[in-house]
């Protein structure tokens, strides 16, 4: 009887330890997964505006996109390739998502994860677009995708879709 109780308690302990190990493992892997996905800040226009006005030696490529925007998604690989080509140089790509903030978890983050995007991504949530579109560029109609390429010497705004070669040509002339 005593022996039986003993073995029962061993079994319980083993079960408990296994359970704890499993839990710890699950927790760690979950943490790891979280670490691989960058934090995406949700910014209003005031908070975002400094991205348009950096005054240093770097060339900035600011692409306005959204997961629902088909042409944006079509040209995204060109931007990602550009970013990997110029990484380590005075070049910075910022992907400005115009997705609705309630789609951050369900659309934006899964897209970032599936495409292993390491470039900086921010979500711009600024409702009265009429008050800020012209501050990005007065030629912007409001449709996306659009891309702003600037450094301290030049500034160009494009309401169009790019291939990688076209982007590279523009950036190469500036760096």
């Amino acid at each position, binding site marked *: 009887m005593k022996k039986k109780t003993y073995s029962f308690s061993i079994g319980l302990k083993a079960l408990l330890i296994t359970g704890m190990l499993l839990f710890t493992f699950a927790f760690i892997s979950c943490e790891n997964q979280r670490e691989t996905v960058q934090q995406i800040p949700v910014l209003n226009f005031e908070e975002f505006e400094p991205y348009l006005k950096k005054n240093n030696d770097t060339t900035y490529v600011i692409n306005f996109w959204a997961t629902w925007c088909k042409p944006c998604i079509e040209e995204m690989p060109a931007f990602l390739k550009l970013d990997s080509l110029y990484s380590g140089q005075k070049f910075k790509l910022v992907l400005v998502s115009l997705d609705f*903030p309630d789609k951050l978890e369900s659309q934006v983050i899964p897209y970032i994860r599936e495409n292993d995007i390491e470039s900086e991504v921010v979500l711009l949530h600024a*409702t009265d677009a*009429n008050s800020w579109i012209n501050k990005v560029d007065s030629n912007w109609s409001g449709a996306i995708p659009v891309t702003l390429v600037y450094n301290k010497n030049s500034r160009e705004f494009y309401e169009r879709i790019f291939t990688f070669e076209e982007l590279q040509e523009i950036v190469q002339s500036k760096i």
Partner: protein
Amino acid sequence: MNGYSLLKNSKKLFNQKFRKMKNLSLLIFSLFIGLSLMAGGYEVGDKATDFKLKDVDGTYVSLSDYEDANGFIVIFTCNHCPYSVAYEDRIIEIDKKYKNKGYPVIAINPNDPDLYPSDSYENMKVRAKEKGFTFPYLFDDGQEIYPQYGAKRTPHVFLLDKSGSDYIVKYIGAIDDNYADADAVEKPYLEDAIDALMAGNDPDPDFTKAIGCTIKTK
């Protein structure tokens, strides 16, 4: 883009060789005018074209069908665009509010269904029925009307005022200042513009911008 590079090349040629030739500068000038016309689209004050486009019920709709209308709220919109979807209920409310006052909504889907299958004529019928659209939802088959208006995105509003047999563009732009929350709207641009017209005034502002979905062509 070809037109642009043509212009650029012509300019180069002009600078290099024919600086003094007046006729060439005239050519460049007319090329420039041609290009700006090609860029197309109405500005406030322009006369808008009528059209004959197919509604979701199979009938064809023209502005001239509405003999009693004082004007029109022409909205380029579609099924697939989240901004359009966000405004559907508001467009229905605006139609209900202003139709009886002589300003009905005419919605036009400008997209090519080969590029956006959810914007096909069949899917337009489905969406119009689901939402209970109170206004015509027309298909710009062949994409001939939206470039004349200069619609750049969905939704994109062109408010027209009837003047004799002409339709004069009075307001171009956004419905309001908050796509995300109808209850948080501070500037109902379109309603303010219609109210101004009904009071015999010109809308102010008469042009606004908004984020929207690109109207794509092949």
